[in-house]
C-alpha cells in the first residue's frame, strides 16, 4: 500500500537514453499501466522502481521515501518478471514461500499464507511440482503467487501475461484486475498490448522512446489522445488519419481535405479556441477518426456525406471491418455484420463530428 512518485527519472545505457525525464505519480491502490511499444522503456522503468537498475537522474519515491540507492530487498516491492524467473530447483511451494522464508516467518504461518495464495490462484494441486513440470500459464500463476504471498508496498508486473496464448491471456487479464481490486494494492503494470492496458488500468502512462506521451484514464487516452502517437497506438483497429487544413472563415472553423469539407461543431470549435492553437487563417492539421465513429451507407442519405469506394471487407463475426478508398487513401470503418456492401461498391459515410481528434501537423500534438 503506497504511492509511487517518479520525479524527472532518466535512465541511460551508455549513449542510449532508455527513459527520459519521466515524471508522474501512481496513487495508492491504483493500477497504472505503462504502455508502449517494445523498447519504449517500460521494463527499465519497472526495474528502476524495483532497484534492479540504477537511476541516472531524478528520484523515485515509494510511500514518500526516496528509494534511489536502496537495495531491492529493502524496498518491499514484489515483481512478476516477463520470463517468470521461477527458481528451477525449488518446488512450487518453495518458490512461493521463499519471500516469507527470507523474512524468517514462522513455518506454520508460511504454510497458511502459501496455501491461501495457491487457493486465490487456483493452483493448489501443483504445490509439489517443479517449474519444469508446469505449463506457461501455470508458471505465470506461480510467479504471481510468489508476489502476492506477502504484502509488499507495490506490485511490479512486467508483461506478465504477454507469452500466454490469446484465450488464456484474455482470461488472466480479468483475473489480474480482479486480484488487484481484491488485494487493494498499488500495481505498476508494463505492457505493450493496448487492449490489456485499456481493459485493466485505472490510469495509463503511454511511453514511447522513453518519453511519457500521456498519463490519463483509459477513457481519456482513447477518446482524447494527446498526440498522434497515442492516437495511433491505442485502438484495436487503428485510427484513421487524414491530412487536412483547418480553415477559419467568418469566425467559423472548417476542415478541408482533398475530397471533403467538414464543418466543425460548436463544442469542437470552442475546444480548439480554448486550447488556443496559434494560426491566422489556415493551419495544416491531422484529423483522427476512430473506425467506429464513421457511419457507412450504400445510399447518399444527405448532402454532407463523403463518398468512397469499398475496397475490402474483413468480417469479425458480429462486426465487420470495411476498408474504404477515399481519394488517395484507405480508411478502416467498423460496422455491424448486416452491412451488405461488396467489393468496388460506391459507399457513402458520415463522421461523428463530436468524436474527432485534431493534431497539429508540425508538433503532432492535439489542438483540442
Amino acid at each position: 500500500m503506497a504511492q509511487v512518485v517518479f520525479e524527472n527519472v532518466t535512465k541511460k545505457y551508455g549513449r542510449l537514453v532508455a527513459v527520459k525525464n519521466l515524471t508522474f505519480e501512481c496513487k495508492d491502490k491504483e493500477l497504472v499501466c505503462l504502455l508502449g511499444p517494445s523498447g519504449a522503456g517500460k521494463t527499465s522503468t519497472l526495474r528502476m522502481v524495483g532497484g534492479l537498475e540504477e537511476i541516472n537522474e531524478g528520484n523515485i519515491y515509494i510511500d514518500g521515501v526516496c528509494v534511489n540507492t536502496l537495495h531491492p530487498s529493502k524496498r518491499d516491492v514484489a515483481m512478476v518478471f516477463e520470463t517468470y524467473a521461477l527458481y528451477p530447483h525449488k518446488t512450487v511451494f518453495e518458490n512461493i514461500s521463499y519471500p516469507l522464508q527470507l523474512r524468517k516467518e514462522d513455518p506454520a504461518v508460511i504454510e497458511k499464507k502459501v496455501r491461501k495464495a495457491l487457493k486465490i490462484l487456483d493452483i493448489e494441486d501443483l504445490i509439489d511440482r517443479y517449474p519444469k513440470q508446469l505449463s506457461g500459464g501455470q508458471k505465470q500463476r506461480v510467479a504471481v503467487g510468489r508476489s502476492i504471498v506477502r504484502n509488499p508496498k507495490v506490485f511490479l508486473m512486467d508483461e506478465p501475461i504477454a507469452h500466454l496464448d490469446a484465450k488464456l491471456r484474455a482470461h488472466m487479464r480479468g483475473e489480474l484486475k480482479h486480484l488487484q481490486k481484491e488485494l487493494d494494492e498499488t500495481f505498476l503494470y508494463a505492457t505493450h498490448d493496448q487492449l490489456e492496458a485499456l481493459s485493466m488500468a485505472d490510469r495509463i502512462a503511454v511511453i514511447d522512446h522513453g518519453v511519457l506521451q500521456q498519463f490519463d484514464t483509459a477513457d481519456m487516452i482513447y477518446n482524447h489522445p494527446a498526440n498522434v502517437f497515442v492516437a495511433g497506438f491505442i485502438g484495436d483497429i487503428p485510427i484513421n488519419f487524414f491530412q487536412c487544413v483547418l480553415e477559419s472563415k467568418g469566425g467559423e472553423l472548417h476542415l478541408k481535405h482533398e475530397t471533403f469539407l467538414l464543418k466543425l461543431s460548436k463544442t469542437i470549435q470552442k475546444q480548439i479556441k480554448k486550447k488556443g492553437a496559434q494560426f491566422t487563417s489556415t493551419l495544416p492539421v491531422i484529423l483522427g477518426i476512430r473506425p467506429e465513429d464513421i457511419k457507412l451507407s450504400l445510399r447518399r442519405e444527405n448532402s454532407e456525406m463523403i463518398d468512397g469506394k469499398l475496397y475490402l471487407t474483413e468480417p469479425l463475426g458480429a462486426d465487420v471491418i470495411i476498408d474504404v478508398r477515399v481519394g488517395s487513401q484507405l480508411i478502416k470503418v467498423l460496422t455491424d455484420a448486416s452491412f451488405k456492401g461488396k467489393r468496388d461498391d460506391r459507399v457513402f459515410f458520415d463522421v461523428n463530428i463530436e468524436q474527432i481528434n485534431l493534431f497539429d501537423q508540425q508538433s503532432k500534438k492535439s489542438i483540442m
Partner: protein
Amino acid sequence: MNRDSISVGKVIKIIIIALFFLWTVVPIIFMVSSAFKETGDIFEIPQPGDWKGIFRLLFFFKVSMAQFYKMFIEGKFFKYLLNSVIATVCSVGISVPLGLFAAYAMSRGRIPGKKHLYFWVITTRMAPPVAVMVPLYVLWRTYGILQTRIGLILAYTTFNLPFSIWLLRGFMDSIPRELEEASYIDGGSRFRAFFDIVIPLIKPGLGTTVILCSLFSWNDYLFALILGGRGSETLPVGISELESATSILYGQIMAGGLVMIVPMIVLGLIIKKYLVTGLTMGAMRG
C-alpha cells in the same frame, strides 16, 4: 531390408563397445588381480591352448594381501597415502570455494577490464607445468617450503584455482540473472541470492570442478617429485620408487595403482548424482 540394416548397425555398435571395453577394462582387471597375488603368482601364464587358464589366473587365484602388507606395514605407503589425501583435499578445498567467489565476481561483477583479467587468469593454466617448474622451485626454496605439504598444496592450488575460476564462471554465466534479481526482490541480499540460487543451480558445475581439480592433484607426479621431494612424497612418487635400477616390484606397483584409482572412482560415484545437467531448464518461460 530396414530391419537388417538396423541389426547390422547394432552389431557394429556392440563390437565397438566390446573393443572399447577390452581396451579400457582389461588392464584394470589385470592390475586388480595382480595386486592380490603373491609376487611369484603374478608372472604365471597359462599353457599354450589353455584358454580357461586365462580366467583362472585373472579371477580364480589364491588371494593374498602380501603386496599391501609390504607397502603399508613394511613400507611407508601410509605416509604417502596421507600426503596424497592431504594435498588433494586441501588444494581442492582452497581452489573450489575461492574459485566459486572469484567466478561469481567475474560473471556478475562490474570490473573494469574484466575480459582481460579473465583471459589472464586462464593463461596461467595454459603453460605446461614443466615450463614453470624451475621458477617455482626457486620461489619455493626462497620461502623455505620445498619438501613440505604446504608447498605442495600451494603448487596444486596455483594450477587448480584458475581452472576452477574458469570452469565455474562458465556455469554461472549460464544462469539467468533474473533468478538472482527475483531473489533480491523477494527480500534476499546478494549473499542470500548467491547461496540460495546460484550455488544450487551450479551443483553439476561444482561436481565437475571438484572431480577435475582432485584428479589433477591426485594424479600429479611432477610437482610431488620436484617440489614435494623427500618431505612430502605422494602416492605416485611412492609408486615410482618401487622401480629401481636393480628391481621392479610389479606386485606392489599393481597394488599401489589400485590404491590410486579407488578413491577417484568412489569420488566420481559420489559426485555423479550432482552431475545432472539441465537443472535450469524450465525456470523461464517456454
